[in-house]
């Protein structure tokens, strides 16, 4: 019906009212389209705003407040910030986080890539091994942490038993999670083992995307396996490696659960990391303002490293 009425108007000398209607309807259509689009985004965005964006902004503000979670919030200015430099636990946590990241990121990357290359070959039981390697990533962290604690038990764990049968003196035996010199190693090993399967899958996808003609060309050029790896595989996997590095770095900066399960940050502060310190300050000491300040430090640390990584990627 609207079509017939609008066609009836065509060609009339008094075109002004018609044009007005047209403009209005076009604008209305635009608004309508936008509303439809927003309505699709809304469910996700509302959830994000309430459960992520809101708390983050609140935490940012809290970093400059004193609050114990029940009494009134008071303005603290830069008190929390200055406290960071005197807090020995924070300094330990900061360096432990750096050490954890610097060691576990390349180690996980190398293990994941190595596994991916091995399990990309036509070997017997390939699917079984792929599943087995991916399993730690999907398994319950609580369950596997308990198993790890048993395996790496300094007195009767199978790892030390094996070391003993290999002839290692009981005095030199690593104390693993119970020893301040070995606790970080234990946590890092656990982290590598837990996440390498996931990144192996990503590397497998990357490997399968490499044009096999490049290897054939390299064969004819006279490259051996190692040269093919260095001159074809590694450069072809650069985008995958970039993705894996960024994800692993962020994951390592945020490490918490495996430390909570294995060492609780100890012995002493030997495995205390930033997120664990945030947890302690917030939910053990109930100093939510200060813990937010530590969180802010972590946020800027992750942001800075990620920006550097993206810059470097762009330069390449």
């Amino acid at each position: 019906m609207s079509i017939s009425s609008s066609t009836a108007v065509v060609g009339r000398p008094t075109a002004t009212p018609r044009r007005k209607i047209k403009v209005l309807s076009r604008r209305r259509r635009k608004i309508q389209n936008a509303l439809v689009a927003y309505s699709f985004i809304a469910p996700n965005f509302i959830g994000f705003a309430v459960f992520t964006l809101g708390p983050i902004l609140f935490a940012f503000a809290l970093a400059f407040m004193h609050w114990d979670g029940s009494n009134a919030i008071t303005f603290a200015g830069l008190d929390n910030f200055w406290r960071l430099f005197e807090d020995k636990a924070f300094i330990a946590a900061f360096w432990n986080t750096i050490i954890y990241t610097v060691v576990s990121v390349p180690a996980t990357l190398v293990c994941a890539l190595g596994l991916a290359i091995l399990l990309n070959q036509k070997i017997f039981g390939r699917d079984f091994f792929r599943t087995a390697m991916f399993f730690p990533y999907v398994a319950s962290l609580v369950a596997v942490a308990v198993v790890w604690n048993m395996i790496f038990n300094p007195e009767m764990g199978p790892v030390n038993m094996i070391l003993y049968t290999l002839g290692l003196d009981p005095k030199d035996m690593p104390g693993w999670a119970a020893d301040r010199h070995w606790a970080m190693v234990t946590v890092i090993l656990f982290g590598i083992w837990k996440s390498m399967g996931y990144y192996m899958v990503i590397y497998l996808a990357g490997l399968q995307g490499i044009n096999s003609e490049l290897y054939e060309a390299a064969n004819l050029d006279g490259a051996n396996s190692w040269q093919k790896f260095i001159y074809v595989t590694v450069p072809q996997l650069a985008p995958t490696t970039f993705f894996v590095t960024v994800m692993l770095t962020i994951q390592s900066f945020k490490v918490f659960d495996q430390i909570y399960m294995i060492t609780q940050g100890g012995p002493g502060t030997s495995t205390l990391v930033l997120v664990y310190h945030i947890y302690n300050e917030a939910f053990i000491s109930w100093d939510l303002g200060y813990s937010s300040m530590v969180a802010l430090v972590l946020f800027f640390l992750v942001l800075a490293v990620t920006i550097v990584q993206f810059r470097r990627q762009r330069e390449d």
Partner: protein
Amino acid sequence: MASISLKRLNKTYGALTVVHDIDLEIADKEFIILVGPSGCGKSTTLRMIAGLEEISGGELRIGGDLVNDVPSKDRDIAMVFQNYALYPHMTVYKNMAFGLQLRKAGRDFIDSQVQDAAKILDITHLLNRKPKALSGGQRQRVALGRAMVRNPAVFLLDEPLSNLDAKLRGTMRAEITKLHKRLDATFIYVTHDQIEAMTMADRIVVMKDGHIQQVDTPQNLYDRPVNMFVAGFIGAPQMNMLPSLIERRGDGYVAIFDNRELPLPAHFDKARIAPYEGRELVLGIRPENFHELPPADISPENLAPFKAVVELAEPMGSEVHLNMVAGGRGLIARVSPRFKAGIGDEVALVADMTNVQLFDKETERSILY
């Protein structure tokens, strides 16, 4: 010396045989082209020569040496891939130099080799670019250059022009032919394009279903195809295949098609035709053997009037391809653009029988050769 010899070479994947006992002798410095439809085994044969596919059976000799189990890099060969397979992260220079670097050649030697090849291929100005900044034709040249720098005895080219547009393909065809003359090496070239095969090769190997159909010079393949497949594959538009009855007339023979007697030329071996007297066989006649007027240089006894109804006229500029129907069969004639024929018209042409082909209907083999 880089003659290549294939003796009962075959390739199987489990129960599937894709190359059946191929015998082929390729002379030193020959330009040989393997041609055939997709899946005929031509690429697999080339890849066996390259050492990229394991040889399931038979012998492969390069320069007299048995190389079945010799790795690719030690066969003194270079290959140009269909998709060029240039290393994306390396510059053109590095792509070309890579093989020599791996062989630990001296820097000055590498540089002179790369510069020489680049000059020949006219890509000197591209040496610092990466492959993604090149056009298809330029990538093709780089791929050729990469093969050239090592001065291999044998060049293997796997459909190297199939990713280029028609115009560039024409130019590159001529350039590769010139390159072959200049490099003085054996070229083995795979293509599905019979025009490439006809224009470039010293000899053509026509393959189908993993079997060699015929090996000969381009002109011989065109004039004396051994079977209907080769006759149909070589030449565009295709040879017309007309089922015809053979009958004796005097001391000669005629082929009867569409109730019309087409005299078979006197130079045909009558002893070979005699067994087919009174039987049907397939008469092959190429589109250019139909004429609007009797050509002066052909003796009248080899000419026969031929009528057909025009279904479609495809003007090519220099000629017109008439798609016609006669005796319930579709056929194509190449005529002059001056010849005007409307769709649905019955046209009277002259068939030149001098070079017709005769094939057995069952075996599809030529009864003449």
